[in-house]
Each structure stands twice: as structure tokens, then as C-alpha cells.
């Protein structure tokens, strides 16, 4: 177990370093930098440009800039935002909490709706119920998130004369406002994920229910409840957990759109605005954080396998 963990952590560290280098080089390969944005469409005053370049350390060789950043990062210092002046780690953490709340609520809602729908559709394969659920899946999977979000926003406003407050409040600041802000974004994201879940679980259930042990169980006189929920569902759990990990990573990716659409100050929006503003420390710090989170989720999924199936324990 310790060896397994060690190998995985080593691989994660290498992945983090390589992706950081890629982000570092890519950001600098994109034309335009913060100095252009600060000076805007005004005269190209060489002295002002050089002064700012020196101020941000952009006049130093690339390897020196990268080495300094890595040196800080391994000690937990991701630097400060060039625009905000705040430590990048604090900005990333604040934004992550927003995204995490959005992701967890979405995952919970998607699981609570999607898994039962998939199970029911799998058991009731070919019936009218199955077709209704499949229709929902089709719509959910094909409706673009930004479109759905916009329709929900405009629709609730027209139908209920209500809209979410656009100014963010954290759950600890004002819980009621917090929920009001998150209802529509969670709904827009969850529809897609619930449909994906439902479609996936339906397939698994159909496959599982066709297996020999189910027929044997049926012959043995097990009740449908025991057959479906004790045996079939238990075997569906492993791929389901993998899928949950994938969905979580997918939600974390999909939030960029939804955070922008509903003015949520989350990680996606932080990264997007930092890229647009060429705020290199924020882009690098935030993406490093995302890499770490994605690696951790994958590792957690692998460890969960072992919990669910002793044969897979490393």
C-alpha cells in the first residue's frame, strides 16, 4: 500500500511539474502581456514599458522566471496576483470554495436524480417509462449548458418575476442569498450530468441483469428487490464510482461556462479572467491547483475501488 501510494504521488509530482512548465511556456507564447494591457491604446513609451517589464520581472530570462516560480511553489508560495496584489494561494482557495460548493451540489443532485432514473430505465427496459427516461437523457445530453442556463435565467424571470441576486454571498455570509444564487447554476449543470448518469447506469443495469447469476438468483426464488438492489446494483457500484470521478472532473471543467453565465467568482472564472489579463502568477498557480485536484480525485477513485472490491486492493 505504501509503495503504491509512493509511486502514485511521485507520478503526480512529475505530472504537476510538467504541466506547470507547459502552462508557463504557453502563457508566454500567447502574444500580448500585462504591460500592453496596463498601457492600453496609449503611446508606446519605451521608458514606461521597460520600467513595468522590470517591475514584473519580465525582463529576466525565461528559465530564471520559471525557476523562481517553482522555488516558491514547492514552499507553498505561489506569488501574488499582478493586478490584485493578493497572494495567489488565497485567491485560488477562495475561488475553489465557490466552485467546490457548486460541484458538490451538482454532483449530489445529479446522483440523486440520475442513478435512480438509470436503474428504473434499466429494469423497465423497452417500456414507456424507459422511453420517457431516455428522452430526458437525450435532451439533457444534447442541450448546451450555456443555453440551458440562459433559458433558465430568462424563463424564471418571465414566469416567476424572480432572478438570482448577481452579487455573490458565501454560505457563511448569507445562506439564503447563497442558495438563491446557486439554484439555477446547479440546475443547469445537473441536468446534463443526471442525463449522463442515467444513460450510463441504464446500460450497466441491462448488462448486469442479463448475466447468469441473476438468472440463477431468479431460479432460486429471490425477490426482484433482492435481485435488483442487493446483487445487480452492488456490481454496478465499481464502474459507477469511476464514473462519479469522471463526472466530478467534468463538472469542474464545465463550471467555466456556468460561472461566467451566473457571475460566480469561482475557479473557472478566476482562470479565464487571469488568462485574458495575462496575470501569469494567477494562471500558473490556479492551473497547478487544478492539476493537483484532478490527480487527487483519480487517486481517491483508485483507493475507493479497493474499499468496494477487496480483489482490487493494491
Amino acid at each position, binding site marked *: 500500500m505504501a509503495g503504491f501510494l509512493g509511486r502514485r504521488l511521485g507520478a503526480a509530482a512529475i505530472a504537476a511539474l510538467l504541466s506547470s512548465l507547459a502552462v508557463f511556456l504557453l502563457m508566454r507564447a500567447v502574444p500580448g502581456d500585462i504591460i500592453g*494591457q*496596463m498601457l492600453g*491604446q496609449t503611446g508606446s513609451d519605451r521608458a514606461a514599458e521597460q520600467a513595468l517589464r522590470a517591475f514584473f520581472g519580465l525582463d529576466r530570462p525565461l528559465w530564471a522566471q520559471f525557476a523562481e516560480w517553482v522555488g516558491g511553489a514547492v514552499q507553498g508560495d505561489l506569488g501574488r496576483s499582478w493586478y490584485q496584489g493578493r497572494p495567489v494561494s488565497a485567491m485560488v482557495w477562495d475561488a475553489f470554495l465557490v466552485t467546490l460548493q457548486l460541484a458538490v451540489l451538482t454532483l449530489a443532485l445529479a446522483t440523486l436524480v440520475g442513478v435512480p432514473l438509470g436503474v428504473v430505465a434499466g429494469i423497465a427496459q423497452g417500456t414507456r417509462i424507459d422511453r420517457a427516461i431516455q428522452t430526458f437523457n437525450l435532451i439533457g445530453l444534447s442541450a448546451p449548458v450555456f443555453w440551458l442556463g440562459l433559458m433558465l435565467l430568462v424563463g424564471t424571470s418571465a414566469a416567476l418575476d424572480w432572478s438570482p441576486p448577481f452579487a455573490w454571498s458565501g454560505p457563511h455570509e448569507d445562506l439564503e442569498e447563497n442558495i438563491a444564487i446557486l439554484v439555477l447554476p446547479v440546475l443547469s449543470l445537473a441536468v446534463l450530468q443526471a442525463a449522463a448518469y442515467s444513460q450510463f447506469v441504464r446500460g450497466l443495469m441491462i448488462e448486469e441483469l442479463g448475466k447468469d447469476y441473476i438468472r440463477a438468483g431468479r431460479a432460486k426464488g429471490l425477490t426482484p428487490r433482492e435481485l435488483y438492489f442487493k446483487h445487480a446494483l452492488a456490481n454496478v457500484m465499481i464502474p459507477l464510482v469511476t464514473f462519479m470521478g469522471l463526472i466530478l472532473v467534468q463538472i469542474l471543467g464545465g463550471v467555466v461556462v456556468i460561472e461566467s453565465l451566473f457571475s460566480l467568482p469561482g475557479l473557472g472564472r478566476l482562470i479565464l479572467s487571469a488568462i485574458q489579463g495575462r496575470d501569469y502568477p494567477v494562471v500558473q498557480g490556479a492551473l497547478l491547483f487544478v492539476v493537483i485536484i484532478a490527480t487527487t480525485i483519480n487517486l481517491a477513485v483508485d483507493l475507493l475501488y479497493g474499499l468496494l472490491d477487496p480483489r482490487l486492493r493494491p
Partner: protein
Amino acid sequence: MRNLTFPRRTALHLALGSLALPGVARAQQAQIDPLISGPTPPGACRGGRVTIGSLVEPPALDPFRQAADARIRVSVLMYQGLFYEDQSGVARPLLAESAAASADGKSWTFRLRRGVKFHTGQTMTSADVKYSYDFMRNAANGSPGAGDLSSVASIDAPEEHTVVFNLSRPNAALPMTLTNKYGAVVPRGFFETPNSGTRMNEISVGTGPFKLKQFRPNSTLTFERNPDYWQPGLPYLDEVTFVTMPNSAAMVVGLQSRRIDLAMFSRPQDTQALANAPGVQVHRWPSLNQKTVDLDCKYQQLSDMRVRQAIALAIDKKTVMDASISGYGTVIGTMVAGMQEAWGVPIDQLPNQRVDLDRARSLLAAAGHPSGFDIDLTTIIGYDWMDAAAVTIAEQLRRINIQVNIRKLDLGVWIRNFRAREMGFTFNDWGTTPDPSLLYYRHFRAAPEGADFRNWNNARASALLDRGQETADPAARKAIYAEFQKILAEEVPTIMMFSSDLLTANRTRLKNYVQHGTGWYFGLAKAWVEG
């Protein structure tokens, strides 16, 4: 000594007086100078909070070192310069009380307003003014406004309420330069505090009607009333919160559902959804902005003036305006709409303004392109109007056999190209402080004095821009800039197409909000809410 003094408390008369002049912009007919001298609104009461929806958010709040227009919009609530950019093209006194230029035009003496306090509690003196503008004009400090002050040789503070700007060459536009776009008067020594620039995201140190309360990037920006503000009784509002909104549909929804009280729309046609919304008013204001097509005079075929003229002759500005902003604007020649009456040349007196395809084709043939050519036209991501305009212009240029490939660029990349003078053939969208020198000088004066982004390098135009800057007599100045505009229209380094109107929508509980033509939020100082 030419005296351009504005005696205390007579600014109202000045503003009213300017109404009588024939050359006054449209804005003044509707509203008199909103910030400085407009009448106190009847029934105005103190108190209340408003929420404003905004599509853009300032990247940071340092007025000295951030050029972004989103920053300037809100900076004017916290920070002030010596003068205020009245839309008629006159610099009105703000922190200064009077301005006087010496006979040779190379020395300006400003008397300062008394009793002005910074948000830090300190009282403003001439030493603060000298400190602030010295900081800004030193290029090593990285202010985008430094170039505008290149004519300033030194600043003296002989008395507590007197500052003297000594110039290396006369600059009639100096008062208008000391307005509110870049820089401001801040307490002396402020920039010696560590991380002073980013510190301005946490506290405000200006003299404006509102103080910074909290800036939460990607979310909200909140200001509170400055209780020590120097204009008696102002501002009325206790608190103003800006919320960053994703798109105009969200702003429409926010206004309808009473979540926001005010929003400014970048695409005027988006306000149509609010035409019949209960409790919401839509206002249309003339602007100092311009939508242009810029032509890099060293780029491929554009280096031949005849090609540029042919393009100008093929573009029907009105059609482009209708397609891109549903006609909510004014077609222009060589001057932004808000300044046309004061400084512009009537369109029918300018060359290359009317569509003339036959002439365009023969110019192209003379330039060696009888069967036309292919060219890239650049639009900027996030500037929606450019998409419709690009398609329209591509269609119009096809009629003279120019095949346009539309290229969409990220703003950061576009700025880089622009600053490097590699703009090619591109759309542009920019606003100005209402003075012709500030409008033209940096953009069209040959290097090194100007930036000459379009590689025009025109000696005659440059000489006129120098003279215009040095000439104080308004009539003589106007004649100089009229001559300049004729050259600009003749040689086509840019095609100024139209100024789009500013459209604001507000809940009716918000009263007396007046929108300045720059798009900046000066008007909040005198706005108030009912109940």
C-alpha cells in the same frame, strides 16, 4: 496674461453661457454639466443604496497605472483631477478653481480649491498636486498618462493653494489633460508605501464623492458615501455596488426583477427588451466614442493611398451602423459625434465620405489592382458590434473586388499588435477626452512625439497637430483642426464610421442619473433614490 479664470461658484453661468454658443454638443441641450454645476435636483434626499449591473470589471483600481476603460468608469467616483471634462469641449474646474496661462503659453498657473480633503482625512495642498502629477509624468513609473504630459517641464508649488506647470512648448489642451482619465490628485508620499498600486484595490486615497468599500474581483465592487466630500450636500447615495454581469440578457433580467437599479448597454439594441418593462426607464445619450476601421499605412496593399481611398469610397457607414447597432448612433466624418458641432468639419465638406464605386474601382486600377485583392480584416473578441460590421463591410468591399477574410483576435493580442504598430486592417472602438488635441495627437502625430499607431508618418498633419496644441485662441484652433481633418479624410489612415449612443436603463426609483459621454459614472454623484 490671457486669463481663463473660472470664478468660484460661477461655473453654472459658464455652462449656461456655453449653451448660447452655436457650437455646442447635443448633450448640453438636454442636460447642463451634470457633475459640477447642474441644478440641485428638486426633492432629492440623502440615503439609500443602489446596485449597478456592469458587463466589464476593472482589472485593478490604480488610476495611475491601469489604462482599462472599465477602471476609469469607476475611478471617477473616487479620484479627481484638477479639471472636469465637460462634453462641450471645455475643461471645467474641479480641484482647481481657476486656470491662467502666461502670454507665451508656456506657463500655467492654477489656483486650487480650498477645504478639499482626501479619503485619508488629510487636506489637499499644492504639494499633493505637484507630487501626483510629477509621479504620473515620470515614465519610469509606468503610467499610460505620462505621454499626455510630455510638454510639462516642471511643476512648482509656490503657495499652499497655487501650482504652476512650466511647459517646454505651449499646450492649449493642458487643462483638459489634467482631467480624470489617467492619474488624480493623491496625498503626497502615497507611492512610497509598499505595493502602493495594489493597495489601491483595498483603500481609496482620492478626493471624490465616494470611497472604496470593498473590491471582490469577478463579483462585486462597492463604494460608500464620502462624508467629507467638498461639494456641499453631495453625494446623495449612501452606497453604490457594481455587480459584474455576464451579458446583456442578464442585465435585462436583473432590471426586471429589481436586482439592479442601473445598467449601461454596450449594444444599444439590447435595450429593446425593456421598452415596455414596468418600473424601468431607458435613456439615450450622445457619446464621445467612435467605431472605426483603421488602416495601417505600411500594411500590404494599404500602403498605397489610392487603395485606402478606394476602401473609404466603398464603405457605406450608415448601412454598417444599422447592421451593427441597429441605428442607435450618429454617422461621423472625422470627429466623434459629441464634439462634432464644436470641432468637426461638416461631412459634406470632407472628401471620401460618399459611396462612389466607379471612382473606387478606378483608384484600385490605378494602384495596380484592377481585379482586386484579398485582405484580412480584424475584429476583437467581446466587441459584438464588430461581427455584424465585418460581414457588412466584407459585402461592400466585394463590390470593388476586394475579398475580405475576417479574423477574430483576443483583446490582449490585438492590443499587442496595435502598440507594436502592426495593426493591419482592423476595427477599433475608442473614446476620447473632449479636446481635439487629446483625440488626435497621440494617434496621428508622427513619432517620436506621437505614437502614430497607423504608420501614417504625415509631416503636414503632424505640423498642424503641433500648431493646434500650441494655439490658445479657440477660433484659430478650430481652423487648424479643420485643416487637419481634411487631410485625415483625404489620406484615410482611419475611417471613422459612427459614434454609438450610450443607452442606460434604470429602475424608476433611481432619480437624476445623467450619463457622461465618455461612459464614465460621474453622474452618480448627483443621483438619488426615492423612499
